[in-house]
């Protein structure tokens, strides 16, 4: 492309320039610059053939086209909301996309301000005082919440209580994050899809560091007793960590009002859409735990001209300064997704966001009603308010139902021997008639 047909297309040196640079260094070849003992030098090849853009695009497109073209009615912690075009176009500006952590705030005000705005939106949605500018995903955010609890609670106890219904994968991440501080992750039961507060009351004791609950749950159930859960935790000097997401938070009880100490979840329900599980961990907590927060924080300050300006702040919590005593090992985070989340929230505005949340209730309710009308199907299984998704009982084995629906072009979850789960958002709502018809075919 630029006079050299071998080598990296993104290393722009012409042969003459390379020669001149080598001359300036008084060496004969680039190889002379490497200080690698022969015994460990690599003289083989990787066997990776260089290809041009067009052929790679064709290959990747062809490969991905091998994914079956199913209409997904899938959720369970990863959701597909429509992302407005503005988000792609503006988040892809190179100033945002290709920059890095704002170690030099004077030249990075734009991203810092966008992250400050992201933090502020989460403060509004949760009612808690401090949002960081992201961890990796909902599961790692929960892991960070548990280690934060271990740092701020000086109780002897090491118990982290989690609900019966949560993703096993999320729990596995939590167990790994807590291994270093020897916490034990224990399950408390649910009743009809929601927290069994009586059972939880029995489970919580003075050894409990953290109580975790989700609303909506992984089954889409809206918890009705969050305040009681918060009170139970507080009575035992444990932290209450609530899992949620920005769309649900726009409508459901404010975490601050139910006694939540930490709110975690996937903020990419706004901004990213379906991305094979890629998301962004939202992490919000009370101001009193500010110095124990993991990850980056953007704060407002002033510059020499007296104007308000933004900067990463309280960095002494972080690994590059505090090393093994840091609040977390996180360095690279999901900042660009945070930018997208903020852009999407701004595009919706408060009216649009509340409407999206309300639609998430209507859609789950209406879809459940329609499936419930089908003989051989009962929906929703839980007698609860549902958000976006719900579990349905099928008289037929759920495995067969899911397979038959896939053959008909629809993907739903199997969550039990006779239980399927269905998630409806604006991106698949137009296909609901088709799904209902397909379920009628296969569930009888």
């Amino acid at each position, binding site marked *: 492309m630029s006079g050299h047909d071998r080598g990296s297309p993104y290393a722009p040196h012409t042969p003459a320039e390379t020669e001149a640079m080598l001359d300036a260094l008084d060496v004969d070849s680039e190889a002379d610059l490497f200080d690698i003992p022969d015994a460990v030098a690599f003289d083989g*090849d*990787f066997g990776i053939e260089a290809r041009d853009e067009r052929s790679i695009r064709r290959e*990747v497109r062809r490969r991905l086209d091998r994914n079956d073209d199913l209409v997904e009615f899938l959720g369970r912690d990863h959701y597909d909301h429509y992302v407005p075009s503005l988000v792609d176009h503006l988040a892809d500006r190179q100033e945002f996309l290709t920059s890095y952590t704002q170690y030099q705030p004077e030249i990075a005000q734009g991203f810092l301000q966008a992250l400050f705005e992201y933090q502020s939106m989460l403060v509004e949605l949760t009612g808690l005082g401090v949002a960081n500018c992201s961890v990796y995903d909902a599961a790692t955010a929960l892991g960070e919440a548990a280690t934060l609890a271990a740092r701020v609670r000086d109780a002897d106890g090491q118990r982290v209580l989690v609900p019966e219904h949560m993703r096993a994968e999320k729990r596995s991440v939590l167990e790994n994050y807590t291994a270093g501080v020897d916490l034990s992750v224990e399950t408390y039961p649910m009743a009809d899809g929601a927290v069994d507060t009586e059972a939880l009351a029995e489970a919580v004791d003075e050894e409990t560091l953290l109580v975790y609950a989700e609303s909506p749950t992984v089954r889409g159930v809206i918890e009705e007793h969050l305040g009681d859960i918060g009170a139970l935790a507080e009575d035992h000097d444990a932290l209450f960590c609530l899992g949620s997401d920005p769309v649900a938070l726009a409508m459901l009880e404010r975490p601050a009002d139910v006694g939540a100490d930490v709110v975690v979840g996937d903020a990419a329900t706004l901004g990213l859409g379906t991305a094979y*599980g890629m998301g962004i961990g939202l992490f919000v907590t009370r101001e009193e735990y500010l110095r124990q927060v993991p990850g980056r924080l953007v704060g407002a300050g002033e510059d020499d001209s007296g104007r308000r300006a933004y900067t990463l702040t309280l960095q002494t919590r972080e690994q590059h300064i505090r090393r093994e005593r840091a609040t977390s090992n996180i360095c690279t985070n999901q900042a660009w997704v945070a930018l997208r989340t903020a852009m999407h929230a701004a595009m919706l505005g408060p009216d649009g966001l509340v409407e999206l949340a309300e639609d998430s209730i209507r859609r789950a309710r209406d879809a459940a009603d329609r499936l419930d009308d089908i003989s051989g199907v009962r929906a929703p299984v839980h007698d609860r308010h549902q958000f976006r998704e719900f579990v349905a009982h099928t008289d037929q084995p759920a495995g067969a139902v899911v397979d038959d629906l896939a053959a008909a072009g629809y993907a739903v979850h199997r969550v039990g021997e006779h239980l399927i789960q269905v998630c409806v958002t604006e991106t698949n709502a137009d296909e609901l008639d088709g799904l209902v018809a397909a379920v009628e075919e296969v569930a009888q």
Partner: protein
Amino acid sequence: MNYSQARWSEDDRYEPLLSEKGNREVAVDEDGLLPDDLTRDTVELPALEEPELARHYTRLSQMNYGVESGPFPLGSCTMKYNPKFTEDLAALPSAAVHPDRDEGTVQGLLGVMHGLQDYLARIGGMDAVTLQPPAGAAGEFAGVLVAKAYHEHNGDQRSEIVIPDSAHGTNFASAAMAGFDVVELPSAEDGRVDLDALESAVSEETAALMLTNPNTLGLFERDIEAIAEIVHDAGGLLYYDGANLNALLGQARPGDMGFDIMHYNVHKTFATPHGGGGPGAGPVGVVSELAPFLPAPRVRKTEGETVERFDPEHTIGKVHGFEGNWLVLLKTYAYIARLGDDGLADASAKAVLNANYLAEQIDYEVPFGPFHHEFVASAGEQDAADVAKRMLDYGVHPPTTKWPEIVDEALMTEPTEVETTRSLDQLAEAFNAVAGEDDETLESAPSETAARRIDQVAAARSPRLSWQALDEE
């Protein structure tokens, strides 16, 4: 080079916050979909229309410096140019699938993941790779957990991880998160691992040595074979921090040097965008003996040439709720395919050539060498942080400063292979202009950036972390 960053300002602030342009408080659930006690009353958020938002974010972007703005030699971060075509691939509708899809219905996606596992194994000289960790530090954490599980599986409780003092802070933090005690290894006078110190640091408690090679001074650990022998003789494992792999592509492989575990920073070595702080991805490669401990699931080919997910026999479980930052991994795959063997080797050759050429052109002393893809200069009598602020005025991003501490007033500089002779000369001019300036000039810099010098100490003293906090004043 003259430079003047866009500066949008209004009164005593720059671009106003979204909230200052127009928040609106709206009532929630007026239709009574839920009982009152299950809903909040109102939500107050910015209420702006698309044209206003487009202008807001465009202005913010203009007050931000990216790789395409100019040279970005931020040491240890490998700020390469990010090829555009990989963005188009990540935007394909067929790439947007749900992680709970049955494996039989996402063969294309799993095929790309399998292909990337294979590429990375070859490049690192490793036997097995997991793509799950969502960043370099997450890779470290996964790798250290693998080491822990391996030792425990062998009935061996080991409590310590040895880390050189010049290592990235994440190494220490990741080891601690996994429950290990950190044994810090002082560097030898030449900036490399001190073999005697290593001998006395390792013991039957040593689970692993975490090593960056070339290290953060850009120096290759020439004694790597002896290092590996010392660690292995003590029963420990050797962990490779892939932050500096851009120095070695096609020249040396961690697997051939005796490393048992490594992570790759794909946002560094393989040019996926840094995104203002992330997302990246931190795949982990291991030798075959450790493969049974990798996170679940991995993917493999079946005899029928389909790709399946599987859980390694003694898996540590999960380090990400799903399977990592898939869209970043897809870009990684495309970048590696674009470069191939020659391109990858050339990327490292040119990265090393550029670092050496730049170091040769600047007036600041570079105390340690021979270095590879990055060097650490010393600002000497000047304050490295002030040097960085002043360099901003010359239209370049400055180096990483004041680290590693082994160099006084460190300027850790990594130009990467993407700079031309001309842009390296521009960088050198910036370094040298600043080297000749007095403290007063440096301390009053920058003046050409959107914001002037920001008082970070004051910002930390009274933290204001949201527009709500500003409103309270």
